[in-house]
């Protein structure tokens, strides 16, 4: 084998790895390394300024788990997550279904649902804070004008969660709508035509055709909004002037607590341990979500009521009967 032959052999063997290596190198530097470094720091009593630490084992994890604030933060995070993700996804599916139909100025409506997403989170925070202010707020003004009592948005935990979830929903509903709309557009129009011929109304069509076809997209949207929801930070951070979750931790979320431990108290060992705990929580919830979503949303079973095996069997018998007829 000549050298050039060898060279071309190596080329075939190793070049592909070389071509894709930039991604993995980048991932190692900006992805893997910080994750590993965080794990190392989480076992240390870390001094950021002097960049040194003392190994303390699982102390930081024990400390976090023994903090009442951590459990309050966990409760708040889930509460805000549920209050935002659930209505947001239902609303997004509904709006997407409406946009999927034949309406005037389609593109205009489709683009306009994305407008809130483009607004900077801090701007959203400022606007909504002015609206949700306990005394001078626009919303309480309206409530009082129609004879209801003002809502203590910054006092009662549940109300603060509702207010924060509103900000989240404002920003993310449009985003999810567009993803779901794209999935809906991919559904074969023949199904709808057939269903119309069969006499199924829009509601029946939605549940029998649209929803089942959305399953993979829904799983994606639910998983990503779970990750985002559990990492919720900007909205509770800008909810009051201090950004520390309220005097009684009414709207302290896990990431907010993490930030405060890290950048408020300069305790990066604890903050790193907290980051890993959050990572594990997200992993667990993600798995639970996947299982639940899979079993809740029915498979494309309605327009294919039989399994492939049954279909093959049917085809076989049909073929045979045709053969027998020909005989």
């Amino acid at each position, binding site marked *: 084998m000549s050298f050039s032959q060898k060279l071309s052999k190596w080329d075939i063997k190793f070049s592909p790895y070389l071509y894709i290596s930039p991604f993995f190198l980048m991932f190692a530097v900006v992805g893997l390394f910080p994750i590993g470094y965080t794990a190392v720091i989480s076992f240390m009593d870390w001094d950021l300024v*002097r960049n040194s630490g003392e190994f303390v084992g699982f102390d930081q994890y024990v400390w976090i788990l023994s903090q009442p604030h951590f459990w309050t933060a966990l409760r708040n995070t889930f509460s805000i997550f549920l209050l935002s993700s659930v209505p947001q996804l239902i609303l997004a599916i509904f709006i997407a279904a409406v946009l999927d139909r034949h309406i005037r100025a389609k593109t205009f409506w489709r683009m306009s649902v994305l407008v809130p997403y483009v607004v900077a989170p801090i701007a959203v925070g400022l606007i909504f804070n002015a609206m949700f202010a306990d005394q001078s707020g626009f919303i309480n003004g309206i409530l009082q004008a129609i004879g209801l009592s003002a809502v203590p948005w*910054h006092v009662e935990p549940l109300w603060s969660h509702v207010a924060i979830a509103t900000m989240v929903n404002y920003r993310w509903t449009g985003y999810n709508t567009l993803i779901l709309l794209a999935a809906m557009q991919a559904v074969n129009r023949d199904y709808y035509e057939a269903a119309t011929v069969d006499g199924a109304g829009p509601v029946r069509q939605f549940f029998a055709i649209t929803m089942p076809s959305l399953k993979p997209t829904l799983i994606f949207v639910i998983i990503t909004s779970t990750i985002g929801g559990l990492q919720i930070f900007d909205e509770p951070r800008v909810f009051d002037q201090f950004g520390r979750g309220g*005097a009684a931790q009414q709207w302290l979320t896990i990431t907010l607590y993490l930030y405060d431990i890290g950048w408020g108290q300069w305790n990066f060992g604890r903050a790193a341990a907290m980051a890993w705990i959050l990572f594990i929580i997200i992993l667990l919830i993600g798995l639970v979500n996947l299982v639940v979503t899979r079993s809740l949303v029915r498979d494309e079973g309605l327009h294919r009521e039989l399994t492939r095996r049954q279909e093959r069997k049917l085809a076989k018998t049909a073929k045979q009967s045709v053969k027998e007829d020909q005989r």
Partner: protein
Amino acid sequence: MKSRALRRIGLIAGAATTTAIVLAGCTGGGTPTPTSSGDGDKNFEGVELTLATFNDFGYTDELLAEFTEETGIKVVHNKAATSNDARANFFQKLGKSGLADVEGVEVDWFTEMMKYSDLVAPVPDDLKGRWLDWKEQAATDANGNLVAYGTDIGPQAICYRGDLFEAAGLPSDRAEVAKLFPTWDAFFDVADDYVAKTGKPFIDSANSVLQGLVNQLEIAYEQPDGTIVATENADIRAAYDTVVDRAIPIASYAGQWSDDWYASMAGGEFAAMLCPPWMHGIIAGEAPDVTGWDVADAFPEGGGNWGGSYLVVPANGANVEASQLLADWLTSPETQIKAFNNAGTFPSQPDAQSSADLTGFVNDYFNGAPTGEIGINRANAITVATYKGEKYFQFHDALQNAVTRVFDGLEDKEKSWNTWVTEVSAF
């Protein structure tokens, strides 16, 4: 939604410090080393320094141009929007690289910095004595090194609404009002009287009273030897009791700086505020349409300091000597007077306080009150510099939360105190 996750990580990494980081990006490199003329007399011609401050120190471009004219040193001034931005940026880079040659540090996080006092260049000995005693003392580390150049202080006075006072049957003349507040008891009696007559809150917030009380204690939460006394300190308990029993009923809000608080200032809902000189600009800026604000030359039980800043020179900077020269110049009495004229930052140098520019200063918004002279009197009335340990910020913040919980009706007085005790034990 990947962008969402990424953005969140970005936020955690920097939150509102984006400005600071961007600014810091400009501070690296490009600074030529000073050329020594060899005979000990330094020549800094062509040197470029960076100066990082926040809010408004009063260091205008014209002011810095004067320095360049005198020394030939160019100064690039980076301003962070808030003290919190500056704090995050400062501690992320201290001991590493990327800090400006001269950095502004606020008293609220100054004690945190004192833990790393070996990482900043000490102030030359010949400058000792330039500042007020307590200002200097707070910046002296365990080894006796003065490590920071004092800029401004916040001697508290009482700002009041003359029109509302008059309507409630109280005196409205500056000198008369000053006599109303010799002690905290007298202060709260006047306040109760006002609330009873008008049905409106007297003061803006309960936590500003807590701030006022704590700033009059010698020992707050930690002793100079590091012992934590927060929960056992009878003075702290007394301050808490006073605030809950007497300040909450007369206060409009639990704390300051909320949207409601700003709106209520603009609407002119409350009649008085505890106000250091830097608050004057905030009131005038937020409530331009409210007339009747005035400043009384008084503060219950003497004096109290709230806020103020220092300049420090990171020891690992490229041009420590030139930077020291800049910090020296900026905190000289003459320059501080100019800064006061620019931004109302009250000088911490006794020499500056005898200057006619300061003694004759009159604030038109506050009904022509001689705020320069009042500031001097209030600064002289300060007898105690509260010892603020490195965790002061955490302790005080948690205690403020305790007051807020009572204010909001979430917990009663005892329960909220106990919650605070539990929280403090976890620090």
